[in-house]
């Protein structure tokens, strides 16, 4: 039986027929470009459009009208103002700005009202409540915009279930704190002497509220929560119940769950709107530590002293030098590669060594690899594609065929054999396992990942109504996966898209559905040759080396970290900032910490467009 293995994407095939017919095939070579047949039927920005689901006699004012058009004018891009881009990430034509010779003038993107991502919520609670917390399930983060949870969190609404999950999570987290008298006293800062100890109530609200909301409370807000505590303490005849209610309220508040990034108008003399010191404190903190700002940042914010490049850099250096700063690249990698999905990914029962412990190790290895490159070795970031220095648990070591003596289920540094098949991200079990189905690896999914995530080239989805049904394999014929897929590609229209992806996945065919090494497929010899844009190579190690040598791999990394840091998809008008960042990254030897310093001190991080109406 012929296997077709591209997730739902296999319909490419159809699209390819249509694409060729329409002469649509085009390759945009820029880092943010799109490859493959383009789609001629882009949908416009959504919501409230005339003729959409309508009520009564007024179609167009209908129930579908919670408008969400993005891109275009909103981001100052070159779009038509109707939003809707081929990548779904706003800013039509990003990367092509200036191609007509007109220089692009920098203008900042708009602000945001950003809900904390699940990990940021968890980390923030951990820090505010001064210890580990157990919180249960949260609404899953969305990755629909820009490839990062933290970006989607500024656009996607939470569901009623998600709100209830916040309530349960905060109930559980505060229960842990109040069950431990020592921890409780530490977090509360005072011990109420009675159910009417207003001084203690107020002191707690003022101090804890400022930490949780990342800025001082107004007098009215302090009164609101002090009264809440007194009210509940009275009803329950228990001061601690009152304090816990106050804590729950402060944490359930939108002022904790969302970060407002609005900016302030420039002082007399003009210029761009600028993020407030308070907003900068949070931007720095969530970018570099994926958690709530610490006392030093909040103090500077209160004094409005995070309004210069120098002040921002000083704090960035301080955070990057702390252990919390390692989370900058750690969580960046987790979000970009969606490593949380590893825990949810089942495999066929034949993979007996695919255990929860192995899955956990898979989720941890890649962030540790990035942290090591950036913080321990200060190596070129491009080593993430080629490094033999990695981290394993005993489970992962066993899978990799490394010695397991002395290893536990905690990550430990390890060096992969210099003549072995593994080096870098694309040979980690985490990546290989994610881009595979339950039974076998997927060259197309792996190749698509490389195009889209490593090289920032969007593989287009397909036009409609092309026949995707493939010729059947004669009975009794055994082929490797590659042979099956190569047969598919004898159809010219199929090959058009598959040639962009599959040759990048074939060199990884010596790893199975959980990333274990294999030397054959169906008992047949593997062909590990691959190519990218005319450059030929063979096997997984050369694949990583070839990709690392592609200038667009470095550019793509800059683009992705910039998105993660700023919390938005770059608009065309941010091209000058990105171009500078890319050039500096290149000339400086691809150092991640330098890049992060350059980003936080860039205009794109500090400035904001005036609020939209």
């Amino acid at each position: 039986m012929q296997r077709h293995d591209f997730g739902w994407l296999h319909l490419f095939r159809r699209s390819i027929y249509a694409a060729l017919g329409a002469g649509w095939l085009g390759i945009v070579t820029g880092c943010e470009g799109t490859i493959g047949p383009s789609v001629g039927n882009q949908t416009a920005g959504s919501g409230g459009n005339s003729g959409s689901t309508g009520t009564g006699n007024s179609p167009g004012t209908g129930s579908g009208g919670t408008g969400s058009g993005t891109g275009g004018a909103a981001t100052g891009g070159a779009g038509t103002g109707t939003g809707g881009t081929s990548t779904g990430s706003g800013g039509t034509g990003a990367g092509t700005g200036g191609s007509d010779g007109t220089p692009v003038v920098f203008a900042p993107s708009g602000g945001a009202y950003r809900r904390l991502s699940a990990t940021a919520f968890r980390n923030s609670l951990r820090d505010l409540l001064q210890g580990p917390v157990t919180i249960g399930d949260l609404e899953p983060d969305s990755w629909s915009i820009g490839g990062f949870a933290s970006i989607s969190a500024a656009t996607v609404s939470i569901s009623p279930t998600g709100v209830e999950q916040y309530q349960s999570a905060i109930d559980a987290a505060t229960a842990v704190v109040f069950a431990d008298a020592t921890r409780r006293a530490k977090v509360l800062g005072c011990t109420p002497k009675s159910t009417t100890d207003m001084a203690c109530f107020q002191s707690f609200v003022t101090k804890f509220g400022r930490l949780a909301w990342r800025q001082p409370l107004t007098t009215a807000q302090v009164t609101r929560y002090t009264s809440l505590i007194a009210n509940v303490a009275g009803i329950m005849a228990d001061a601690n119940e009152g304090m816990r209610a106050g804590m729950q309220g402060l944490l359930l508040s939108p002022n904790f769950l969302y970060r407002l990034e609005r900016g302030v108008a420039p002082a007399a003399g003009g210029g761009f709107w600028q993020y407030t010191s308070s907003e900068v404190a949070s931007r720095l903190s969530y970018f570099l530590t994926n958690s709530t700002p610490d006392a030093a940042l909040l103090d500077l914010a209160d004094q409005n002293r995070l309004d210069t490049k120098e002040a921002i850099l000083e704090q960035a250096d301080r955070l990057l030098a702390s252990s919390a700063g390692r989370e900058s690249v750690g969580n960046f990698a987790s979000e970009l590669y969606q490593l949380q999905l590893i825990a949810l990914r089942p495999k066929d029962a034949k993979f007996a060594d695919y255990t929860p412990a192995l899955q956990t190790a898979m989720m941890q290895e890649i962030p540790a690899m990035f942290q090591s490159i950036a913080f321990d070795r200060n190596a070129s970031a491009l080593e993430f594609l080629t490094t033999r220095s990695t981290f394993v648990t005993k489970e992962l070591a066993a899978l990799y065929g490394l010695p397991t003596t002395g290893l536990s289920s905690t990550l430990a540094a390890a060096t992969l054999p210099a003549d072995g098949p593994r080096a870098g991200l694309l040979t980690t079990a985490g990546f290989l396992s994610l881009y595979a189905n339950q039974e076998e690896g997927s060259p197309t999914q792996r190749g698509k990942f490389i195009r889209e995530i490593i090289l920032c080239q969007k593989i287009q989805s397909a036009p409609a109504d092309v026949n995707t049904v493939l010729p059947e394999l004669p009975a009794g014929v055994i082929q490797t996966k590659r042979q099956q897929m190569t047969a598919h590609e004898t159809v010219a229209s199929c090959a058009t898209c598959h040639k962009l992806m599959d040759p990048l996945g074939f060199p990884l065919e010596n790893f199975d559905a959980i990333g274990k090494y294999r030397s054959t497929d169906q008992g047949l010899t593997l062909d590990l040759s691959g190519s990218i844009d005319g450059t030929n190579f063979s096997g997984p190690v050369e694949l990583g080396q070839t990709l690392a040598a592609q200038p667009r791999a470095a550019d793509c990394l800059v683009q992705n970290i910039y998105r993660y840091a700023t919390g938005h998809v770059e608009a065309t008008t941010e091209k000058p900032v990105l171009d500078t960042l890319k050039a500096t990254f290149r000339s400086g030897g691809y150092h991640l910490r330098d890049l992060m310093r350059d980003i936080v001190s860039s205009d794109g991080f500090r400035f904001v467009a005036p609020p939209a109406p």
Partner: protein
Amino acid sequence: MPTKRLSRRTVLRGALAGGTALAIPVPILDIMLNNNGTAFAEGTAMPKRYCTWFFGNGIIPSLWNPSATGMGSAWSLSEELAPLMAVKPWLTVVSGLKNMIGNASPHPMGSAACSTGGSVANNSAELISIDQIVAGVNKGGSFPSLEIGCSDATPNGPENTLHTVSHRGPNAPNYPEFDPHAAFARIFKGVSPTTGAGGASGQSQTTKVNQCKTSILDAVLADGAEVNALLGAKDKARLAEHLEAIRQIEKRLATLPTMPSTIQIPADPQTAGIAKDTKSEAPMKVNDVMAQMLAVALASGITNNATFMFTLPAAHVYYRSVASDMNADFHDTIAHTDAGNDAATNYQTRYHKGILYAMQGLNTFASQLSKMTEGAGSVLDNMLIYVTSDTAWGKPHGTTEWPVLMLGKAGGALKGDQHFRAANGNLSSALLTIANIFGANLKMLGKGNGLTSTELTGLRVV
């Protein structure tokens, strides 16, 4: 019987007089109905209940569509609909509909088309989905709507339409709960059986605790009102949704629902060891407990509106329990690559088995509702279950002969026991028909090529 004069309003008034902890018998009791059991004693219609029931990866049209059209004995169930024999009297098969949105990005767009009448923009459904249109007008119960499902096996694409068919609007997905214990905890939280345990002191403690929780939420709502002033229109809308969810929690704290004596709160599935599907297998035992909980929630008035996702669009599900040859990815391998076509004589046999399996799952839900009495009939008489998928014939992502079933009589609005053919009709017509059965009073529904103003009037009792 004299007691039937007691109106629902009277019951509510009595409850209100009883104290601060309002105990509202949310379900419909015989005592509240007219002598025919078809409406409330005071003359208002009984509430209708709605559910979108979704299964991923489509059907084989030649085995799905019944051969004859018509009503009652004029038509018989097709091979793929055979599992629904017990509920044929309530079944409306609508064949011939076409997904006008197209299949350029097939499963995400198919999911959007069948649930919203629109397409996908920026990785989100661009319109509100039918269940939420209905929930907007078919109010009542503790939850405006509930979303649960059997298996979350998925290809993990970025489009939110791959993960749910319930959307409050663009970028506002309602993701189903797939964990039976979590679903139980949410749906039946605070619901007491009529026989009521705990006594007066227990209830008074609960009242106090709920008063405190409400105070907390009041403070949070006040914060929300303040920050709202600083936001742009889109962010205001997002915050409004968040705050509305908080008000819904407050509402549930203020009303302590009880179950009618005729309906039992099901056991927590956890006690029977039935846990979430973590192997992407869509186990029937998970379907069955989820179906039971949802049936009880709908019958008892805990909610009037729901979405049930047996599997997700493009589900990478492994129906291992069905047969020894089914241990393969149902989407990649079985639906898209297995030999065979859509002819009744040379069809994809494993694919067909998976479709039958889904219909068995549907039958469990529908049959249960058909056996739950309500007034003179069953809950299914007052229900409309809209059954659909993210594609027609799965292998080529067909857009014609889309699977559309309606189960239930929708409070007398649907004829039922009918195979109605709407050749080349717009799939959105089914959605428009449903919306207006529930009183949405829409002139048109959908967007772009999905837009329609045509209803399927032949299904309705006029």
